[in-house]
């Protein structure tokens, strides 16, 4: 009985921690959705592009780890800059659907550029943290929890705190929240949309890099990261597209439920339900709580 409970705990905790990795990817989507009310389909490509560049800097040019990370982060700021100037500004007055289509195109461009620059083979990324159970926790709590999962959880927590402080207490953060509420009113009082766009795309790029490092360290840096990022979709539906806490909690819920379902219900379906179970959960949310757990309710006065 105790063993079973411990096993259940292990599944849940493992799921929660794996969920933080979903949260990290979802965070990038939320940033852009807040500012432009657009689902950024190129977020997955940004994850792939950024982490491949990071590996490329380290492995092809022998640049040290920290410097390579900073370079990759700067590269993502440049990508944000180019995106604002070349894609978003010309589409400034276009409909949200047009911008959505543009992000799909942007995704293909980034995927192509990444592979042209750094090649197509799967790369190994070593963060210096192994993807194996931490001995101390295994000995004392009898739980087998991966060190990488714990690290990802800590990094996710730090990113959230950082973003929260940025939004709550800085001028540009206030600008972003204003734009998220009413872009027209924000521009009527002189908040320049282009600065806000630049900020969110750069921030989303850096978040993509961090998420890419976590996923890359686990599954290898490869093209599949692009599709994996789409796992963020059910996370966002559950958490709410415009909420940063929502992205986190949504990620945790998806991570934990998919693991629990896989272990306990999976065998009845012949296993591998991890891939689609989150989407089923998302459908229930769409039916009963379409704004998600933390999504901002649309407030309209007539």
């Amino acid at each position, binding site marked *: 009985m105790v063993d079973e409970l411990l096993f259940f705990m292990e599944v849940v905790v493992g799921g929660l921690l794996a969920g933080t990795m979903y949260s990290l990817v979802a965070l990038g989507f939320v940033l852009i959705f807040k500012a432009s009310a657009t689902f950024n389909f190129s977020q997955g490509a940004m994850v792939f592009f950024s982490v491949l560049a990071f590996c490329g800097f380290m492995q092809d040019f022998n640049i040290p780890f920290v410097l390579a990370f900073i370079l990759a982060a700067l590269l993502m700021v440049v990508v944000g800059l180019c995106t604002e100037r070349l894609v978003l500004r010309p589409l400034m*007055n276009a409909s949200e659907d047009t911008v959505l289509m543009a992000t799909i195109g942007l995704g293909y461009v980034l995927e192509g550029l990444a592979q042209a620059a750094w090649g197509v083979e799967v790369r190994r990324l070593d963060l210096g943290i192994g993807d194996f159970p931490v001995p101390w926790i295994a000995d004392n709590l009898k739980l087998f929890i991966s060190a990488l999962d714990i690290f990802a959880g800590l990094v996710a927590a730090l990113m959230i705190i950082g973003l929260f402080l940025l939004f709550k207490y800085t001028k540009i953060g*206030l600008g972003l929240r204003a734009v998220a509420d*009413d872009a027209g009113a924000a*521009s*009527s*009082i*002189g*908040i320049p949309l282009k600065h806000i766009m630049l900020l969110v795309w750069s921030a989303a790029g850096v978040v993509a890099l961090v998420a890419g490092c976590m996923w890359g360290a686990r599954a290898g840096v490869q093209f599949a990261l692009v599709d994996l990022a789409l796992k963020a979709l059910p996370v966002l539906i559950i958490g709410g597209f415009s909420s940063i806490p929502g992205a986190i909690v949504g990620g945790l819920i998806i991570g934990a439920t998919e693991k629990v379902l896989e272990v306990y219900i999976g065998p009845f379906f012949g296993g591998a339900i991890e891939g689609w179970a989150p989407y089923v959960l998302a459908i229930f949310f769409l039916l009963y709580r379409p704004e998600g757990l933390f999504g901002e309710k649309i407030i309209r*006065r007539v």
Partner: protein
Amino acid sequence: MSNSSANILDIKNIEVRYDDVILALHDVSLKVPKGKVVALLGANGAGKSTTLKAVSTMLASERGKVTNGSIEYDGNSINKQTPSQMVGLGMVQVLEGRRCFGHLTVEENIISGAYSRKLSKGDINQELEKIYTYFIRLKERRKSQAAFTSGGEQQMIAVARAMMAKPKMLLLDEPTMGLAPQLVAEIFNIVKELNTKEGVSILLAEQNTNVALKNSDYGYIIETGRVMLDGTAESLLNDDKVKELYLGISKKGRKNFRDVLKEESLKKRSN
């Protein structure tokens, strides 16, 4: 108003189209003298909002364009400006329907108006205190989320927010829409105060002809995208056509709807 340098805003024969096709303004010319309040009056769809958005250059975001005529603000053409540049030049529009940032607090809303100015925290607080002297009600509610304040308070937030940008000229689009008469008076008192104490020139779009003219220096009446009539506020208030069509006063001396009802009830009794 012959001396052009005395006008902060000078609109000459503008024509505006949306989506290159829909003609919203045929021919609108108007002037706002420095330090004055000018009312732009007309029914729904007459072109009041379009005129204001042409001035603040917000038209572009709604796929509208000035296709003819010229607009001069403070002696310069506003041709190639963006809305945030106009704010930098001291021209701020308060959009129709208040448009507060609902998820921000009242105070955050007001502070966001100072975004275009480079102010220190101390300066912002000083400005804020000054603004609260005009909007006493908002100071009490500073920590509430804007979405949960009343319509009148939201209108005050919108004007206070615009004032944080330190405008030389305010464009107010139907500031009294949907407000109770008492609040209408309160809003107009504040607007008048801002005009006299801060020296802000004001162009005001309103459907509430009577109150608007009583608080303005000059008025323009537009219909279907054309200026039909203009004159000093006083002359318009006394104009027979304006009385008949916009103020609901006929020559028989009915003052308002209540008087009409009174007359009718008297008739019934005498029958």
